[in-house]
């Protein structure tokens, strides 16, 4: 699934239709970056994915965001321009490195692109990464669209080298995944300056760090001056002086769209904020509204500086500040009638949550978990989080990458009387395990936890599109790479040999038996499932199946597998001889989608599911 390496980049001055992520990648390449690293995560993934298709720079998928930042930082110490990208929650992982590398600073420019999932399209929370700029005392750039993502990324490298500081390029989903036209430029290569030994700078022991602290604060003051002078911060004038806006990121576009006549202070270099220029701007209009996504960071700083601004008092603290959010809020503020109250209400339609793929190797795992009684399932982040949904309802908790391990141990150690007989199961994918799960398993072993771990090895980072990782033995360009042996790895972490099993998740009886056995044994055990994600190139399709209508009894067992190729055609209830009412669901298999994985055959007692070709009926592809 890796994009091919060394495509010919479009020539300078081309005007290209690019997402914010594409645009950042192009700028990073043009800036002469020599090392770029990331762990995939929506909405940031494509930055590195696209960058890996450019020639003449080193790119890698790292095992987690902290490592990716450390790699980029190491390169910056060596004097190379370097880049690292992550989603917002990735910075929580990388923060340990960030909070001290801000003291050492960098030699080669280091830009960290952090993509906030404002609007929660694919994340577990909605945190505001601009906070890290304040916390780590580093500058923050906030592009509003693709062209700015490109321009600001280039400017960020210049600033980084000028002040020897890492720069945070703060993006949101609405920059990363919006496509717009971008004019690109030429690449400038930059030789690495070389690593200069200087322990007082690079070895952060307390004595050295104490001497770097004042330098960091001095740098921050200089950055405030740079922000005040920056061309990324400017006023777009407007005739309607009743209201002015201070806005950053995509909110600028929404403000411009909604209030074309209002003056707007557009902040591109948003931290440290150019307070005095903002004070002047505020004085030039009757009232000022700060439009920032999502926390009231700038608003609080402006209020603290004695500038009267309006912000989250009238705007939501959650989600995007799109025109349909801004317009009514501002109308209310100005005492005007609400605009476009005529917008029709949505028609009621069933929800359509995302599903696992047809024949996904996780289906059998969740089907099995849903059949085992008296277990608590501590879950993790990946496609398999969907196991919490229908029809399985077989995942009971999920918070952050790798947390399934620690939570499971806590559920075990903290169990109440009522849970005395409960078995604790943790479910984690291969990539998540390598990201942050391994340490948790070591903790379970060391502290003698009674947890059964299901390690779902699907040989890919499935959820973000099947990126390569150490689990599938392929590097970022699809080239061969050392492959981790999970069996050996968990044994090395101390799980006893007898407690480690590798199981084919399409063999339901084996999976069920193993799970039953292992949950009964009061010590850590690991069941590794070993079949690939159906979307990776290793996946082998087999001949599809169909349902023989006359044989199907409507028992509905196959529906509980949760394969999206199985559809219910008819539902009814019958009275059994014993007087019990039984609900029946008759099914069909969408043969064109079925990959022949064989899962749904297994709970079908009357053997109504048969090979589509052998059934002797002409199969016609049906419109659904």
């Amino acid at each position, binding site marked *: 699934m890796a994009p091919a390496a060394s495509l010919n980049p479009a020539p300078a001055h081309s005007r290209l*239709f690019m997402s914010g992520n594409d645009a950042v990648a192009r700028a990073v390449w043009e800036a002469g970056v020599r090392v770029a690293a990331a762990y995939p995560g*929506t909405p940031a993934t494509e930055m590195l994915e696209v960058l890996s298709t450019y020639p003449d720079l080193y790119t890698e998928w790292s095992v987690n965001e902290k490592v990716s930042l450390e790699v980029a930082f190491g390169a910056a110490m060596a004097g190379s321009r370097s880049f690292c990208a992550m989603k917002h929650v990735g910075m929580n992982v990388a923060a340990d490195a960030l909070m001290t590398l801000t003291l050492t600073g960098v030699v080669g420019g280091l830009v960290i692109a952090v993509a906030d999932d404002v*609007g929660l*399209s*694919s994340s577990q929370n909605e945190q505001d990464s601009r906070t890290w700029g304040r916390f780590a005392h580093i500058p923050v750039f906030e592009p509003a*669209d693709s062209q700015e993502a490109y321009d600001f990324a280039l400017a960020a490298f210049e600033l980084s080298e000028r002040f020897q500081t890492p720069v945070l390029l703060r993006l949101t989903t*609405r920059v990363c*995944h*919006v*496509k*717009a*036209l971008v004019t690109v430029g030429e690449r400038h290569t930059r030789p690495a300056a070389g690593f200069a030994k200087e322990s007082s700078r690079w070895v952060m022991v307390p004595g050295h760090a104490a001497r770097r602290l004042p330098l960091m604060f001095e740098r921050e003051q200089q950055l405030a001056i740079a922000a005040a002078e920056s061309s990324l911060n400017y006023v777009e004038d407007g005739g309607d002086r009743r209201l002015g806006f201070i806005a950053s990121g*995509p909110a600028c*576009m*929404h403000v*411009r*769209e*909604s209030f074309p006549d209002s003056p707007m202070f557009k902040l591109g270099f948003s931290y440290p904020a150019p307070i005095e220029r903002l004070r002047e701007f505020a004085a030039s209009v009757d009232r000022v509204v700060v439009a920032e996504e999502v926390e009231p960071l700038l608003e609080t700083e402006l209020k603290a500086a004695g500038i009267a601004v309006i912000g989250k008092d009238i705007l939501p603290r959650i989600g*995007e500040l*799109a*025109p*349909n959010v801004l317009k009514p809020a501002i109308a209310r503020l100005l005492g005007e009638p609400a605009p*476009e109250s*005529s*917008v*029709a*209400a*949505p*028609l009621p*339609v*069933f*929800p*359509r*949550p*995302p*599903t*696992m*793929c047809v024949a996904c190797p996780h289906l059998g795992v969740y089907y099995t978990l849903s059949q085992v009684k008296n277990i608590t399932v501590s879950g993790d982040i990946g*496609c398999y989080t*969907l196991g919490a949904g*229908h*029809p399985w309802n077989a995942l009971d908790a999920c918070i952050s990458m790798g947390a399934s391990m620690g939570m499971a141990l806590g559920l075990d150690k903290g169990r109440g009387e009522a849970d005395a007989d409960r078995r604790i199961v943790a479910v984690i994918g291969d990539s998540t395990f390598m990201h942050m799960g391994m340490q948790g398993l070591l903790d379970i072993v060391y502290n003698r936890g009674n947890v059964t771990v299901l390690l779902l090895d699907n040989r890919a980072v*499935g*959820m973000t*599109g099947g990126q390569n990782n150490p689990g599938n033995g392929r590097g970022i360009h699809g080239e061969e790479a050392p492959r981790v042996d999970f069996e050996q790895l968990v044994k090395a972490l101390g799980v006893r040999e007898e407690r480690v099993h590798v199981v084919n998740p399409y063999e339901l009886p084996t999976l069920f038996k193993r799970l039953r056995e292992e949950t009964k044994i009061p010590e850590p055990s690991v069941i590794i499932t070993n079949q690939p994600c159906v*979307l990776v190139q290793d996946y082998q399709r087999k001949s599809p199946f169909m349902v023989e209508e006359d044989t199907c009894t409507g028992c509905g067992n196959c*529906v509980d597998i*949760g394969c*999206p190729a*199985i*559809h*219910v055609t008819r*539902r009814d209830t019958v009275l059994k001889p014993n007087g019990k009412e039984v609900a029946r*669901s008759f099914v069909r298999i969408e043969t*064109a989608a079925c990959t022949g994985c064989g899962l749904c055959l297994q709970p079908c007692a009357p053997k109504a599911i048969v090979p589509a070709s052998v059934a002797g009926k002409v199969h016609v*592809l049906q*419109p*659904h």
Partner: protein
Amino acid sequence: MSETTNILVVGIGGQGVMTATEILAEAAIALGHDVKKTEVAGMAQRGGVVSSHLRFGQRVLSPQITPGTADLLLAFEPAEGMRWRHMLRPSGQALMNVGRLTPPVVDLGLYDYPADPIAAVRAAGTRVVAFDATSIAVKLGEIRLGNTVMLGAISAYLPFSADVLEAAVLKRFAARKPALLELNRQAFAAGRAAAEQAAAHNTDSAREAAVPA
């Protein structure tokens, strides 16, 4: 006042919604428009709701279409057309595939599939052109041609010539899958014809309805 054209393309992950919007965008770019395109897609690979916003004109600022301002709604699945019809302006036009895709929550009996999504959208006061893009694609021998059929269907409703869109479709396939070029040409034409027929039928039935019984 609206010099910006707003097109909302909706469907389900895996149907080719984003590719179709991308091709529409390429056509608008070819004509020299400023263009922005944005999506909200669910977290998994497929099966979830996908809506793709395309805006083009002289200068496009916000990438998002504000509810109640879409000019065209291109729905790859009828219930999805129903889900998003409130995004259309009152005089907007919906183009809807009738080929249904039932999600697991409906198969499990937790929710009902609407009895007649096309009728529901019409009843809400929206002009609808409905056609069976799925069957057309299947008849051409490849269900994935569905998105070219959909593009053919919308081609008569754009503020530019259908030829520009067809050229964008063919350019894409010429570059990626030349073997499918001719099939895509047919799919585009079939989609266009199907939408024309459906529109003509609408006018006929409107006329019939106007005749007192």
